[in-house]
């Protein structure tokens, strides 16, 4: 009994070793860069993390094919290096000692990539599945092209400035014209009677002085 158990276990182990090795059929290489992603908060990669990884792959397979037959034990990891990198393969429990086709695994991983990344606090670049390309996120398109808005603002300010300057120029010129015509009118009125540059009207005003020397003072003159 014990011998059969040991025999089956060794067969299974050898079978597993056959299934999961670098560049095996339907096997994928994974490369993880924890220190690059998390810096000081980096966790160590140990057996528990490997268990989580197997669980996430099984979860992905279950969600993709929606049959609940994939177990954690179906996911085999091998060749774990210090990098951290390893190979994994998903076995099919219904058919003996075979692996799930690579295309199915790829599709499953692709569908659930976000969930797998979040479980490990990593991103597409730091948790790499070497043969599985990630779809590029579409570029962020703002609702209205930002540059047109800025351009509109700048143009409005400039046009307002030009209109202001032209209008103020016209007003200044109108005021200058009005002033010069007023001055001309004033000079015309004054030009009527001018004696030595002094308007005669001013001389008639009370402010005019009568020069006492030349005032008619009859006693001064000798009588004829």
């Amino acid at each position, binding site marked *: 009994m014990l011998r059969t158990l040991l025999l089956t276990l060794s067969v299974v182990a050898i079978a597993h070793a056959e299934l999961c090795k670098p560049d095996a059929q339907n096997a994928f290489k994974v490369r993880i*860069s924890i220190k690059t992603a998390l810096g000081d908060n980096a966790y160590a990669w140990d057996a528990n993390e490997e268990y989580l990884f197997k669980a996430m792959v099984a979860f992905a397979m279950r969600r993709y094919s929606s049959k609940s037959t994939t177990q954690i034990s179906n996911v085999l990891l091998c060749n774990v290096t*210090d*990098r951290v990198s390893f190979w994994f393969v998903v076995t099919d429990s219904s058919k003996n000692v075979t692996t799930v086709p690579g295309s199915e695994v790829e599709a499953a991983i692709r569908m659930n990539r976000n969930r797998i990344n979040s479980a490990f606090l990593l991103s597409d670049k730091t948790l790499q599945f070497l043969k599985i390309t990630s779809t590029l996120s579409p*570029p962020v398109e703002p609702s209205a092209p*930002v540059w047109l808005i800025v*351009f509109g603002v700048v*143009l409005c300010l400039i046009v307002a400035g030009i209109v202001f300057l*032209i209008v103020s*120029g016209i007003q200044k010129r109108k005021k200058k014209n009005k002033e010069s015509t007023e001055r001309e009118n004033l000079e015309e009125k004054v030009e009527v009677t001018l004696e030595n540059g002094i308007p005669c009207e001013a001389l008639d005003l009370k402010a005019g002085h009568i020069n006492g020397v030349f005032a008619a003072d009859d006693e001064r003159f000798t009588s004829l």
Partner: protein
Amino acid sequence: LSATPEIPKEDGRPKWDNKFQYLLSCIGFAVGLGNVWRFPYLCQIHGGGAFLIPYFVALVFEGIPLLHLELALGQRLRKGSIGAWNTISPYLEGVGAGSWVVSVLVSLYYNIVLTWVMWYFINSFQEPLPWSVCPLNENRTGFNEECYESTAVNYFWYRKTLNITPDIAESGTLQWWLILCLATCWAIVYLCTIRGIETTGKAIYVTAIFPYLVLTIFLIQGLTLPGATDGLIYLFTPNLNTLKNPRVWLDAATQIFFSLSLAFGGLIAFASYNSTKNDCEKDAVTVAIVNSMTSLYASIPVFSVLGFKATTAYWDCLDRNIISVINEFDLPEESIMRQNYTSWISFLNSSYPEKIAGLKLKSCNLQEFLDQSVSGTGLAFIVFTQAIILMPGSQAWAILFFIMLFSLGLSSMFGNVEGVFTPLLELQIIPKSAPKELLSGIICLISFLIALCFTLGSGSYWIDIFDRYAASVPLLVIAFFEVVGVAYVYKINRFSKDVEWMTGRKLNLYWHITWRFISPLLLLIVFTAFVTLQMQKPPSYTAWNPKYEGFPMKEEKVYPLWVQAICVLLAALPCLCVPLVALFHLVKQKRRSKDPSFVPPEVFSHQGANS
């Protein structure tokens, strides 16, 4: 005529609000984009600190004398370039006409550069910056091919901004976004020059002072960036061997000349709005020294940023190599750092040489990255924009940088437009009753319409042509005739008496020697050397061709014959103004002298103009 003439103060000519405004306008005209993107490049390729020697020599013997000459001329004769030269001698009016033609040509293409700056400015408000990421291709499987093979920055400049054609003969279509920006730029120029110096004098306070603020901010930020000191050491380490190469002296002479914006007529126009009792000698020396100091001051942040960019590129190169080595050998993360990279590589190479060779690692050399020198639009729109992406808070830095470039270019545009505007105003193209706003509006509108051809796909190739041919040789010719005209036609003794009357002290011997002998000789030598160098090989240009096998390197092409003819025309047209106008006046004089009843009005016009 050489006795102390009393110029009536109330001749209705507009004047500067104060001396500071006038100085600032001259400085703003002289300090332009070339101070930021040409001088640091020249320093770099001509032996760093050693370049300052020929630069200083050219400044003392060519720059300052010519500057003083132009300012004194404008201030004394109180006229724009055409009127001033007509006053000196009608046969020399062609010199003024040549200056005017050059100002027109330069105004046309200079505003396109401002258009590009404005386009980048309004695109800097986005997150992320549009030149930092490549757009996806049509079926979203990867990046746009042209962008992927070159860089995102190159793609944004050549495709998204210029939409450049692979050949100058292919004109392409008008780019509507550039037309909008061009219209805005001309509207800004119109806004600031609408009433001549009344409005530019107010605008110059902002456009001339703001660049210094931004340069200071960039200086402080630049010096804190990693790798800045490498860039600065590289820039300023003098290599005195380069002084043996005559090319260095030629570049220094031409740089001083174009940097001070001599022979455009703009400086004469600015000085003509001064009162005559003004110390033009001190002004000239001040403007020249401020211009050179600005060049030096600007090269410090430029080279800090370039050093930062080279260091970052070097680190990226190292990091990429490190990642491929770590992935290949499955070594733990952070086992190879930048410091121990070389020791690790030599160790691995000795143990696994085939594996290392199979990785095809690029050799990373910091000196190589520092040696990549660029000048002109490449520096601003490709190299600097790439460096800005790497800085934290890139939007703010991009906005500041492009506003600074815009102010620098705008204050130079004021001088150019003034060089076109003032002579036209004096020639009374439009009736005197019409407002000045109309003339400036007409100038801006016509220039905008002509400049639309630069918004075509091949526009930037044409800008290069204008820059190389219209704004180089003709200026040397005009400046030569300016010095010779004042020294030998107007006669230096008469001119020195005028300057003494204006400044209030006797003219120094230095000015006599430089105006009479050194400057004309130097200009002749520079002109001959310049033309000889241009003639040595057929004029060629580099084109951006995505289908070229060496892409992303630019393809070297020769100009077709009809383009070469245009180049010659551009260079010859302003120069030809000098003999043509002299001939015209000669013919007019001969015809008048043949008619005995006709009293020559020139005697009166001379007196009237000179009093």
